[in-house]
């Protein structure tokens, strides 16, 4: 047993089933969303580059997993659709979809992935994956709104691993998983190194890859089998953040929160046509008005000139000096090999190519609004 020495925090830290593995690999552990998590192993830039070139293995077991269980798909989908703007009813068997829990003003309470089993025997069950920091609130919010006959079952007995990068599919095939032909956002079962897993072809790096849900009791064996592959290296939260930022993907609590709507966040693609027309989700009046008339501000990519990164909270000015917005994520993009950022600007300034000024440590820094993502996505769309 490892002695889980704890920092002097109010709430005791929690540990994923892979904590001992991270420590043995020399990871630097940091508190994150109440868990002790690896921020880096060999270094963020090397880990980032390895994920883009081969396959990176991430422990994301801190995230919330749960099953929503009802008598049939339409009933369960209708229960979830009361809280999210995606078309869940049209979600096919064996498919996954991205959506958001919304508040009555259309603000984002959390973002989540929803998947439907390929197996007809599981019809009426949806699997949800939510952010670690929000999971207790999310699940309480869900339970408070569920109709009779639909129940929430937390899956705290499950760990979550992500294998991301162009070699991820080869690694899983070598370990016996029949996943090569799955298109992006497939959700199904697979046996990896003899271990039964719930697997989706998705992730949060912009690369092809998989997220693998496994029983806690099998998590270490699965991790060991994956990390033993020559193409695989363990990757910490530091590179997870730089990868998702280059991928133009939102981090909850930074790029999206209760004060931002999916329309402002440029996530309109995740609200399908039927839901735009019918509404029936929290804040639908706000969101449909923004769809019709445009949102007052929009999330955009921002590329600072030169080498100096612009961090979260940096003020964005128009070139004539008027405040137009704020950076919500910013740092150094190892694949871009330069500073990259995302933020919100007034809609009039949101077109790609718009020159802006960032105030970094009291000094103006020239930058430009750019299209997202910074690094093109390489999802597998099928042959």
């Amino acid at each position: 047993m490892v002695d889980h020495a704890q920092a002097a925090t109010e709430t005791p830290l929690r540990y994923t089933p892979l904590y001992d593995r991270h420590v043995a690999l020399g990871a630097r552990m940091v508190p994150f969303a109440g868990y002790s998590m690896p921020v880096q192993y060999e270094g963020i830039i090397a880990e980032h580059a390895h994920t883009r070139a081969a396959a990176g293995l991430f422990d994301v077991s801190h995230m919330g997993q749960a099953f929503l269980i009802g008598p049939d798909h339409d009933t369960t989908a209708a229960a979830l659709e009361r809280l999210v703007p995606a078309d869940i009813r049209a979600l096919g068997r064996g498919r996954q979809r991205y959506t958001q829990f919304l508040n009555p003003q259309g603000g984002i309470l959390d973002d989540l992935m929803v998947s439907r089993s390929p197996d007809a025997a599981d019809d009426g069950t949806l699997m949800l994956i939510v952010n670690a920091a929000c999971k207790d609130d999310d699940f309480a919010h869900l339970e408070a709104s569920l109709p009779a006959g639909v129940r929430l079952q937390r899956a705290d007995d499950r760990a979550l691993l992500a294998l991301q990068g162009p070699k991820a599919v080869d690694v899983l095939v070598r370990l016996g998983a029949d996943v090569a032909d799955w298109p992006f956002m497939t959700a199904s079962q697979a046996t990896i190194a003899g271990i039964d897993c719930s697997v989706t072809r998705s992730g949060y790096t912009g690369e092809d890859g998989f997220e693998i849900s496994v029983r806690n009791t099998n998590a270490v064996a699965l991790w060991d089998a994956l990390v033993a592959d020559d193409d695989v290296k363990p990757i910490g939260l530091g590179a997870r953040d730089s990868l998702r930022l280059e991928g133009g993907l939102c981090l909850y609590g930074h790029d999206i929160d209760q004060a931002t709507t999916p329309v402002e966040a440029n996530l309109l693609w995740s609200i399908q046509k039927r839901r735009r027309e019918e509404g029936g989700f929290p804040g639908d009046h706000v969101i449909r008005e923004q769809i019709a008339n445009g949102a007052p501000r929009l999330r955009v990519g921002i590329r600072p000139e030169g080498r100096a990164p612009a961090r979260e909270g940096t003020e964005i000015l128009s070139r004539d000096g008027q405040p137009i917005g704020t950076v919500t994520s910013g740092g150094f993009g190892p694949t871009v090999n330069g500073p990259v950022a995302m933020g919100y600007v007034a809609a009039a300034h949101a077109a790609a190519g718009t020159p802006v000024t960032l105030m970094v440590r009291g000094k103006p820094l020239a930058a430009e609004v750019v299209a997202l993502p910074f690094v093109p996505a390489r999802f597998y769309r099928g042959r």
Partner: protein
Amino acid sequence: MAKFFTKDHEWLSVDGNVATVGITDYAQQQLGDVVFVELPEVGKAVTKGGEAAVVESVKAASEVYAPVSGTVTDVNAALAENPATVNEAPETEGWFVRIELSDEGELAELMDEAAYRAYVDTL
């Protein structure tokens, strides 16, 4: 040449009344990959404990405080092109600034190498 250290993990190599200043190997390990260093202008007056430079890793920006008071006489311009030098050679080629001391008495408040290593061992 005498070498001194601070609890903020800076080193100073003092030659005559000029101190070459950088961050220690411990500091660069804590920061991780350095991607940008903002250096002061030559001629700037710095005060002990005041901001002298900013070092940015992938994750965050950190201030580097002047360990002594004086005037900046030189900066390591090579860090603009190769900020990773701070990771590779933090206590040699990865130096940040040279400061002409205005009060050599301030050196007496700094640690020597043995005291600094002992301090790091307590962290």
